[in-house]
């Protein structure tokens, strides 16, 4: 299991939600919130696949955030 911590000042919450929806069929995701971070726990079949899935999800959330003009 990989825990992805995305800072609220840098990642838009709706972008993280959208990224989880897009990659939902490739693994298991658990979303939670902390005071400064959006936390996504990623589980998949193999550690390598988990790493790839977490990386792609982070990239997707970052790309959406940039396209939407930032986190706020």
């Amino acid at each position, binding site marked *: 299991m990989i825990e992805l911590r*995305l800072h609220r000042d*840098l990642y838009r919450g709706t972008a993280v939600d959208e990224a989880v929806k897009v990659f939902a069929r490739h693994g298991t995701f658990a979303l939670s919130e902390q005071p400064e971070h959006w936390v996504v726990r990623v589980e998949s079949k193999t550690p390598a696949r988990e790493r790839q899935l977490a*990386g792609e999800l982070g*990239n997707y959330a*970052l790309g959406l955030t*940039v396209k939407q003009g*930032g986190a706020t």
Partner: protein
Amino acid sequence: MTSPIAGLPTDVVQADLGAGTVAFTIDTATYPLEAVYGASYIFIDRCFVLLDRPADGKIRVSLAPKKGVPDADALRSIVGEFGNELLGCAWRAQITQQNRAVIEALTTQALAGAMGPPSLDELASFDFTEESFEDPLGIATSWEDKYKKKDGKDATATAAPSAATSSQPAESPTGGKGDAA
């Protein structure tokens, strides 16, 4: 386990050769967030990019190439390319900010020019009676509207003082009566 990369400051850049990742800290006073976003966006096709904020005014960027296990030279190359891209994005952001007023003025003129001049029909149907601003002092009121004769009685009363005034000798601007000579 982190290890330094030759040629790069160890307090800024840390590499993890086992995991194939490199991370470095950026000061937002030097590089604004827009520039970090811009450079990161360019790299998301070949690296896994993760941003974090370890402290106020700092952004930590972690890069992990998607393909293969990179060695120290490859990671150094990635950090260098990201730094160059970051510098370019920061410079573009600064130029855009400096020229924002000019860009907006030119865009407005271009859009207004594209609309073309109003046609005669549009001018004929334009409502000029609409008051576009308040005029509490009556500055925009015409002379005729402001001092128009209401009836004959008022007109006589108004005309009498002016006639009496006209019979007085004219005063010079210096206060003397009549011509100074």
